[in-house]
């Protein structure tokens, strides 16, 4: 029982740190509020969709960045989608890097795009790692009343 309480505390602390360190924003809380007994794994389901979508978009952007001349419209279109997905799960830092990338597309700055894309990938990888650790710990802790949430 005590071990279980400890796990739940760890989950809560881990969750809070994701907000405090700026990885997640209020939109993640919106997803949590949509989760209920009928859809008990909704947040993880959506985040899993995000990983799948992101893999596709990262591959498309990488391919597009290999082409010369750079097609800034196409790059912007892909990044618009990536930004939209990241925004939907509350991925604050990823979203910010996506915005920067799009700004470079707007000004036709190829070097800026290439450089910022590395940042996008880094932030995405970090977010994914942290979310995977969070959900793994949450699964270990098991179900609990969500009243303990706080941001």
């Amino acid at each position: 029982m005590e071990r279980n309480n400890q796990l739940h505390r760890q989950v809560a602390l881990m969750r809070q740190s994701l907000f405090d360190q700026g990885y997640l924003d209020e939109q993640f809380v919106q997803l949590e509020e949509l989760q209920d007994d009928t859809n008990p794994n909704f947040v993880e389901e959506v985040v899993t969709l995000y990983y799948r979508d992101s893999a596709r978009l990262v591959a498309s952007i990488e391919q597009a960045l290999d082409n010369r001349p750079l097609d800034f419209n196409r790059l912007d279109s892909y990044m618009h989608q990536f930004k939209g997905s990241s925004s939907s799960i509350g991925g604050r830092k990823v979203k910010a890097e996506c915005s920067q990338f799009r700004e470079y597309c707007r000004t036709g700055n190829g070097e800026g795009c290439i450089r910022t894309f590395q940042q996008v990938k880094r932030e995405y990888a970090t977010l994914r790692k942290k979310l995977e650790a969070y959900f793994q710990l949450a699964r270990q802790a098991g179900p609990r009343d969500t009243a303990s949430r706080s941001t």
Partner: protein
Amino acid sequence: MASPSTRSYHGCDKDSDGSKRGKLSVLIVDENVLVCRVHEMLVSKLKVAKELLTETATDGKEALDLHLSGSSFDVILMEMDLPIMDGPEVTKKLRAMGVKSIIVGVTSRDSKVDREAFMAAGLDVWLEKPLTAHKLKSVVEALEKK
């Protein structure tokens, strides 16, 4: 690459509110499957009807084809940026066909010009992404006036 539209049904077990409408059908049009899923859940929480039917389409042509094949919806959540046929174009065509649904434009674009153009295409209201329950309340209010 068009994905098949998906349809899902939500029923309310309790009917404590006699003023709720019987059925509500909502079409969610967005290229992003993740966004469609989130919007589907948001709509399911509105609790404005005893039965809720949601359907999704991932491009503009698919949304139009649904109507051409005879489907109709009370509410359409229409993303502005769609492959094949964009949100404003689909909206214009639907209105030209006589579609009277509440069409909610959904966009993350911050250009006033873009938004005004989308409204002029025939929207009832537009909402900024990401959607939240609070933002969808305005849709509920529009429904209640209907």
